[in-house]
């Protein structure tokens, strides 16, 4: 195709130029060597948008909806990863969303089981005030949590206290892991995760979290 414009080119074409409507003397358009512009000029001006009460109301609805969706728990924000330094106060006042809490409670009956493992992760707001119960074995905890979960579904009313119990257990779990975490941090220098994340990722019941590289 590139040779088309040069004198001898005519003869090389496999077809008769007149058949496609290009006369003898007419010039072929020059070949383009660059990509088309991103914003090509428009030959025809677009028609204006419809303006009506309906359109305005829909506009308001759209913007309202967009705003509302951002404040619903379905808008997932990843946990803020790094801050300049780790502060002592962080663990008491962070209201940042973390990766492993869920802010609304779905009907777990409708979801696959593997998705709901994290329902037993605590809401952290209440965590620091709870007194620590005595240690329990790992297996025990598993069972109790299972039981609690089913109970919770059956009688939603009492769900509040159960949540608290669960919290206690996880709390204590975190306590156990604390020192370990500290060491990790020192070795890995500046990669600072939020305190609670670590506790849970490690204390986690080895069934799912272990192969996820966190550090």
């Amino acid at each position, binding site marked *: 195709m590139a040779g088309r414009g040069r004198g001898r080119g005519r003869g090389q074409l496999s077809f008769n130029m007149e058949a*496609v409507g290009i006369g003898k003397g007419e010039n072929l358009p020059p070949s383009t060597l660059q990509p088309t512009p991103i914003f090509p000029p428009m030959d025809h001006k677009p028609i204006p948008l419809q303006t009506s009460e309906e359109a*305005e109301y829909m506009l308001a609805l759209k913007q309202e*909806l967009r705003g509302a969706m951002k404040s619903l728990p379905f808008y997932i924000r990843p946990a803020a990863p790094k801050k300049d330094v780790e502060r002592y106060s962080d663990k008491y006042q962070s209201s940042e969303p973390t990766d492993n809490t869920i802010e*609304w409670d779905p009907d777990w009956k409708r979801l*696959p089981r593997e998705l709901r493992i*994290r329902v037993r992760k605590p809401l952290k707001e209440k965590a620091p005030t709870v007194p620590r119960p005595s240690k329990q074995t790992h297996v025990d905890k*598993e069972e109790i949590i299972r039981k609690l979960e089913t109970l919770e579904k059956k009688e939603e009313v009492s*769900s509040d206290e159960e949540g608290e119990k669960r919290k206690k257990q996880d709390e204590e779990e975190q306590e156990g892991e604390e020192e370990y975490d500290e060491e990790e941090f020192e070795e890995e220098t500046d990669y600072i995760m939020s305190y609670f994340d670590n506790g849970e990722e490690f204390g986690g019941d080895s069934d799912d979290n272990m192969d996820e590289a966190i550090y």
Partner: protein
Amino acid sequence: MTVQEVRLCGLLLQEHFGEVVEKVGIHLLGSGAQILRAIAHETSTPLDLVKKSLCVLVQHGMCEFRRGRRGPGGAVEYHASYERVLRILRYPRYIYTAKTLYGDTGELIVEEVLQRGHMTMSDSVRTVADRLTHNMEEGRSMEYSEVVSAFSKLVETHFLQRCPPVADVGTALPAEAGPGAPAAPAPTLAESHPDRYILPHINLTGRGKRRHPSDDSEVDSKGAKRAKMDASAASDDMGIYWQVNFDRFHQHFRDQAIVSAVASKMDQTSSEIVRTMLRMSEVTTTPTAACTQPLSANEIFRALPPSYSITRPILEQYLSLLVDDPMEFVGKSGESGGGYLHKALASLARATLESVVQERFGSRSARIFRLLLRKRHLEQKQVEDFAMIPAKEAKDMLYTLLSENLVQLQEIPKTPDHAPSRTFYLYTVNPLPTARLLLQHCYKAVGNLIERRLYETKESKRLLEKSQRIEAILASLQASGAEPSQLSEVEEMITAPERQQLQALRNHVNKLDSSENQVDETIFLLESYISSTETSR
């Protein structure tokens, strides 16, 4: 699924559910059915975040799961539906339609259900009543029973439907399956359920509660918990969730489009007749049917609202006019008439295509386009002659249309050697592929609009934050009863040029947003045309 669709889905997910969900959603859309671990690995996202995102997507019906292929113990697979994600674009229209049909109550119900994906009837009634009460003046409140009646109307007219129930509740509970035993990893949702439009028996009495501004913060922090306790205290409809029936809404949009097309082509009266016909067949015709059930003139006459005062002979005349009309919205089957929905959609889509060509390439190109639509196949010479456009210009326009893929070229060789001199070159317009092409353009346009809007807001982020802060200060000052001078002082913290900038930004964003809404109308038309053509084949 095309690049444009994926891009638009990504933008919509990001805007409504955040970046994490976008990442997971895009991955699912791009890769098809996948298991949890693979998603987490390939998106390199923490497992917990992936789980959360999947919950969100499932909650909103944008993602489905099924048990793995390798028997009941196999891993659960997830797959997302891009069509469902693109519906987000149409949410404002659903809400608006609910408002026009059932007033503010209907609007809020549909809005709540859309925002939450699915919810129980008692939850939505309670939330809506509270919101309505909140907007009323002091001392008045909304009765639950009113909201319940609006809700049941929405269900009766099939705008809301039940989510498919969990088929085997027993195996879904881990406790019953036992810790060691291979429990069913995912609940199975029943495929078909006949009672999807049957209301549960709930008794909700009371009225919406007004939230007091003083305990706002407390409600926010513990809101979820408390709401849950409230709900569990009084709801008898646990586990029965309701979702918006998009097909029913689309059917409504389609009927409206047809009615308004008839109104603008013929007149108001005939549009009322068509409206009556469509309303009569709402119940008897399936949403995807190519035409309505045949209706006799007598039936139509009886169903016409008496306020139109259309007499029988006039109705007959209008019907014969509608039947003779080239749009073919109404056809005659034997001695009774029925509406051809598919043809109506095809006509509307064709009109859309024509107007797109007209607005982009001018009226003379549109003439060529229409000519080709009507005559099907034409040689270049014939196009020039029939369109009555000088050969050179016609050629130019035709080639432009060809290069934009709006017009197709078909070669019909006279001899088997395909020699150009012995070949017919026929130009033709193929509405279905052209509609598809245009649909992709529309998706791209919406994607561009959203990106532009994000860019605009990002550019003046600082300004927006400032104005928000100042508005917050003003509100708190007003609440504490500050003096007017103080208020004006705070107001002046935004300078005049800044105010102008804000105003300009607001204008731009409004324009971009309403463009999105209006492009969606075209998208809807083209989508329904394409899907109706596919089903009628």
